[in-house]
C-alpha cells in the first residue's frame, strides 16, 4: 500500500507542477488543484498509513491512527477549496479584463 500511495502522490505532484508551468490560466489553476490534492494525501500519510484503527480513544482498540494529520488535512482542504474558488474567479476576471487567458497577459496565438 505504501508504494502505491507514494506513487499516487508523486504522479499527482508531477502532473501539478507540469500543468502549473503551462501558459494559460486554466491549466495553471488545474495544476494548483492537483498539487493541493497531492499535499493533502502527503499530510495524511505523515501520520503513517493505518487501516481500520480508531483515531480517538475507544475500548478494545489494538492501536490508534494519528488524529493530528487528519485535523491538518481537514484544515488544508478547507483553505485549498477557498483558494481554488478565489483563483478561478480571479482567472475569469483576468480573462474578461485582459481579453486573453494567457498568464502573462500577452496576445493569444
Amino acid at each position: 500500500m505504501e508504494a502505491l500511495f507514494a506513487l499516487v502522490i508523486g504522479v499527482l505532484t508531477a502532473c501539478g507542477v507540469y500543468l502549473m508551468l503551462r501558459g494559460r490560466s486554466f491549466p495553471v489553476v488545474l495544476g494548483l488543484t492537483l498539487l493541493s490534492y497531492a499535499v493533502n494525501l502527503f499530510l495524511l500519510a505523515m501520520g503513517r498509513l493505518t487501516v481500520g484503527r480508531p483515531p480517538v480513544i475507544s475500548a478494545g482498540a489494538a492501536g490508534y491512527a494519528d488524529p493530528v494529520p487528519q485535523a491538518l488535512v481537514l484544515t488544508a482542504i478547507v483553505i485549498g477549496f477557498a483558494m481554488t474558488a478565489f483563483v478561478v474567479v480571479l482567472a475569469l476576471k483576468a480573462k474578461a479584463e485582459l481579453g486573453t487567458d494567457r498568464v502573462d497577459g500577452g496576445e493569444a496565438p
Partner: protein
Amino acid sequence: MNHLVMAPVLLPLLGGVLLLFLPGTRLPLAARDGGHIRNAGAVSDLARALGLALVAAQALAALALMREVSDGATLVYAVGNWAAPFGILLVADRLSAWMLVITALLALFALLHAARGTDAAGRYFHVLFQWQLLGLNGAFLTGDLFNLFVFFEILLIASYALLLHGPHGIGARERTRAGLHFVVVNLLGSSLFLFAVGTLYGVLGTLNMADLAVKAAATPPENLGLVRAAGLLLFGVFALKAALLPFYLWLPGAYAGASAPVAALFAIMTKVGAYSILRVSTLIFGAEGGPVAGLIAPWLLPLALATLAVGMLGVLAASRLRRQIAYLVVASVGSLLAAFGLGGAAGIGAGLYYLPHSTFATAALFLLADLIARRRGALDDRLDPGPVIPGAVGLGAVFFVAAVAVVGLPPLSGFLGKFMLLRAALGHPALPWVMAVVLGGGLLGLIALARSGSLLFYRPEAEAETLGAAPPGFWDLLPPIGLLALVLGLTLWAGPISEAATATAHQLLHPQGYIQAVLGEAPAADPGAAPGSGGNP
C-alpha cells in the same frame, strides 16, 4: 495566563466581523448605482471611525504587550487551555511585540490615507484591512508551525482581495494581471509550506515550534536528511514571502499595481517572511540545534546581498515611481536579511533596528507617490517631465525627506541602520562583499531617487499647462509625514531603541528561555507517547 497576548488577534477578528455587519460597508455599490449617497456616506464615516479606532486599540495593546515583555519575559497563552506540545500556543517575546508595534503603527497611517477616499473603491475594504491585520498579528504571535501556515493564509487571502481593490480604468488591467501572478505564486508557496510542515511532523511528531527545536536537536542520523530537506524547504517558502532573490519577481508588479494604502500596508508583508526566517533560523536551526544547527545561515547572506544588488538595479531602471518604490522594498529586504545573515547579536540587532525604518520609509513613499500621481493627470507616476504639480513645494519637501531616509543618508535612521549593519560585518569573512554591495547599492539608490525627484519637481515642461488639481491639504499630507515622524523618532531615540534591538537579538540567540516558557521546566519527549498508552484499557 495573560489575556493581553490574545488581544492583537481578537481585536481585528471581532472588529472585522462587526464591520461586516455595518450597513455602511455597502456604500460604494449604492453610490455607483446612483443610490442614496448622502445617507450612506454618514454610515461609511462610522466604518472609517471604527476601523481607525480598532487599529489604534491594536497599537495600544501592542505597546502594552511590549512593556510586559521588556524585562525579557516570554508570555505564553494556551488557546483553549490545551497544554503545551498538544494545544496551539500564542507566544509573545520581545521580537513578537516589536513586530506587533510596527504593524499597528504602519496600519494606522495607511488607514488614515485610505480614509481620504481610497476605501470607497471596494465594498469590504475596512473588513479586509482588519483581517489582513489579523493574519499579520497572528503570524507574529503564534508558537505553532501549522498555525503559522493558517495565519499566513488569512493574511494572504485578505491581501489578494485588497490588492484588487482600486478605481476602475487606469491601472486596473495591470492590477488584475499582477494580482493573478501574486495569487498563483503564493498558492504554490502555500503548497510547499504544507509539504515542509508535513515532513517535519512525520519525522519529529510535533508542530509546536519550541518542541520542534528540542526534537530537531535530537534527530537520529537516519532522519537527518529528511529534517534538513524540510528545513530548507521551509526556508524557501519564507524566502518567497520575503521576496528574496530568486523569488522576488512577483513583488514589483503587485506592489506597483496596488492602491497606495494597500501598498503601504504590504510594506510589512515581506517582513513577515523575514520574521519567519529569523524565528525559525534562531529557534529550530540555531546554534543549539545539534545536528541541524546553522542549516539556513550559509544561504542567507549571499542571497540577501544579491537581492539588495538586484533591487537597487531595479530602482535605477524603473520608469515609473511606484515600481521604483516597489524595487526599494526588494532592496530593503536585501539589507534586512543581510543583517540577519551576518548573525550574532550585533547583526540581528542591526536588522531589527533597520526593519521598522525601512517599513515606515517605503510606506511613506508609497503614500507620497499616490499624492503626486493624482496631481499629474494622464502622466500618472511615469518618470517623465510633466506639468507643475500643485503644491509642489510641500510635496517635494516631504519627498526629499523620505528619499533621504530610504537611501540611508546621514541624518536619519537609514544611515544609522546601515552603519550598524556594516559595524556588525567588521569581523565577518564576507566583509568586502557586504561593504561593496551595501555602499554601492546606497549610491545607486541615491542616483535613482535624485533623478526621480528632479524629474518630478524641478523640470516641468514649460508648454504643459498646470492641471486644475488642488494642492494637498493637511489631512492628505498627515499620513506620510506621520510615518516620517516615526522615522525621525527612530533617529532621535536611536540609543534606547538599538539597545532594545540588541536585547531582542540576545533573547533570540538563547532560545532556552523561549523553550522553557513554552514547555515548562521538564521538556521531556515522553508525554508524546502518553495518549496512546494512556488510552489503552
